[in-house]
């Protein structure tokens, strides 16, 4: 008799990552369809730190995942518009996404959910058939973030508007995780949290800052050559069109969508790394830079954000004080645009 075994997803175990420095401890596990990494000093804090990050990741996944049937966001998908009372966590995540949309002039827009589904990104990326023969659906421009109203925990969502928090949620998660670790481990020491390459730090950094590699993929050998920078405060995040790609009807698609067209972006930059006061700011700005295309340099410069852009031809462009060579610290601007500005676009004034 054949028995069908029950299957469920679970939190992957943390695995220690040797780095060559005994004064810090580093651990990594799969999370949110990508990887989570925690680095702490003193190294004895790693167990407590990982437990704190686990709690944050579990809550964020429950709140904001498009790919879990039991998430709050999925529940919104099924309701076809209306007024909803959100949990504090999802309300914050949506508020940050709307603030990011306002800040970036709509270059990142949480209402691209339907556009991504139409393109075939309708499930966890690992489960996508990356070579499916039939073409994707008709591109669906984003309805517009300003049609969504958030007032405290109350969300008013027009029918047909589907949210995707992909441009900000990992940054929010890294910010939350750092706070959680610092709360659990106390004021001594320091922590770095990376969710899918979006990195936030807290506490006291190592001397000269946390050494962080900037690369298109963790095992990337270039060109351009990966760069090592030092992070002494704030956060850094990277967006790229060279990962999370799939094929539909012979056309290669990727996950960064221009809200105005509903199509994957086709600008001159294939990768953007941005440093900012918080990881949600950096996350949003990096994605906005890819979407902005030719306007990315002027927008990032105007915002005073240190950034490293890699063009389609591999040329590297450093802005806002981003170090042109390896080993130097990245300047970090103060002040958050997405947390301090997290207020409803049309709600309470």
């Amino acid at each position, binding site marked *: 008799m054949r028995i069908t*075994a029950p*299957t*469920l997803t*679970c939190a*992957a175990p943390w695995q220690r990552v040797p780095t060559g*420095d005994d*004064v810090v401890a*580093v651990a990594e596990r*799969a999370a949110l369809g*990508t990887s989570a990494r925690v680095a702490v*000093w003193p190294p004895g804090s790693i167990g407590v730190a990982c437990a704190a990050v686990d709690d944050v990741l579990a809550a964020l996944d429950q709140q904001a995942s498009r790919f879990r049937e039991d998430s709050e966001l999925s*529940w*919104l998908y099924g*309701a076809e518009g209306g007024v*909803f*009372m959100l*949990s*504090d966590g999802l309300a*914050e995540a949506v*508020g940050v996404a709307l603030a990011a949309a306002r800040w970036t002039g709509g270059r990142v827009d949480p209402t691209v959910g339907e556009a991504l589904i139409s393109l075939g990104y309708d499930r966890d990326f*690992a489960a996508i058939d990356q070579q499916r023969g039939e073409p994707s659906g008709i591109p669906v421009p984003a309805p517009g973030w300003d049609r969504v109203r958030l007032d*405290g*925990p*109350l969300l008013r969502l027009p029918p047909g508007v589907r949210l995707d928090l992909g441009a900000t949620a990992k940054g929010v998660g890294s*910010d939350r995780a750092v*706070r959680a670790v610092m709360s659990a481990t106390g004021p001594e020491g320091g922590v770095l949290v*990376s969710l899918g390459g*979006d990195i936030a*730090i807290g506490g*006291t*950094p*190592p*001397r000269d800052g946390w*050494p962080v*590699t*900037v690369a*298109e993929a*963790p095992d990337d050998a270039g060109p351009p050559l990966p760069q*090592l920078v030092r992070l002494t*405060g*704030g*956060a850094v995040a*990277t*967006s*790229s069109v060279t*990962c*999370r790609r799939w094929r539909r009807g012979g056309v290669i698609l990727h996950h960064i969508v221009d809200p105005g067209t509903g199509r994957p972006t086709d600008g001159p930059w294939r990768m953007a790394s941005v440093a900012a*006061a918080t*990881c949600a700011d950096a996350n949003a700005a990096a994605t906005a830079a890819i979407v902005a295309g030719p306007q990315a340099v002027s927008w990032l410069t105007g915002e005073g954000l240190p950034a490293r852009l890699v063009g389609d031809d591999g040329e590297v462009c450093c802005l806002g004080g981003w170090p042109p060579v390896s080993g130097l610290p990245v*300047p*970090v*601007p103060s*002040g*958050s645009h997405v*947390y*301090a500005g*997290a207020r*409803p676009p049309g*709600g*309470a004034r």
Partner: protein
Amino acid sequence: MDADRGHPGGRVPLRELGDPDPGVRARRNSIRKARRISNWTAAALVVGTGTAAAALAHQAFPAAAPAAGTAGQAGGAGTSAGTTGASPQTASGPPVSHSVATTTASGVTVTTTTTSVNGKTVVTQVRHAPAHTDD
């Protein structure tokens, strides 16, 4: 307001979905925190939140009082921005020479499943390579 009648907690059934069976309703109420509410309830909460926000803006309440809604979120997160180190800090930690993390596109995905086979738990991790090759 009619929608609220008989539902003192402000929880009303979804009209579109009808009145689900008790099991489904219980799951919705207990597990899912997001729930649809009537326009009247929403309006009342909006007014209440706005009033609270206005009062906070005028410092009618102690600054530490928890504020429902976006104002509270913004304040909390603003504090967190400072926690994460918005400005460069004086580095006094130990010297670390090797990279501890990579800022990169989130292209590496790992699927972890736990399968129960004949009473034994099998954890499987499948690591998917970044799909940045075009061929």
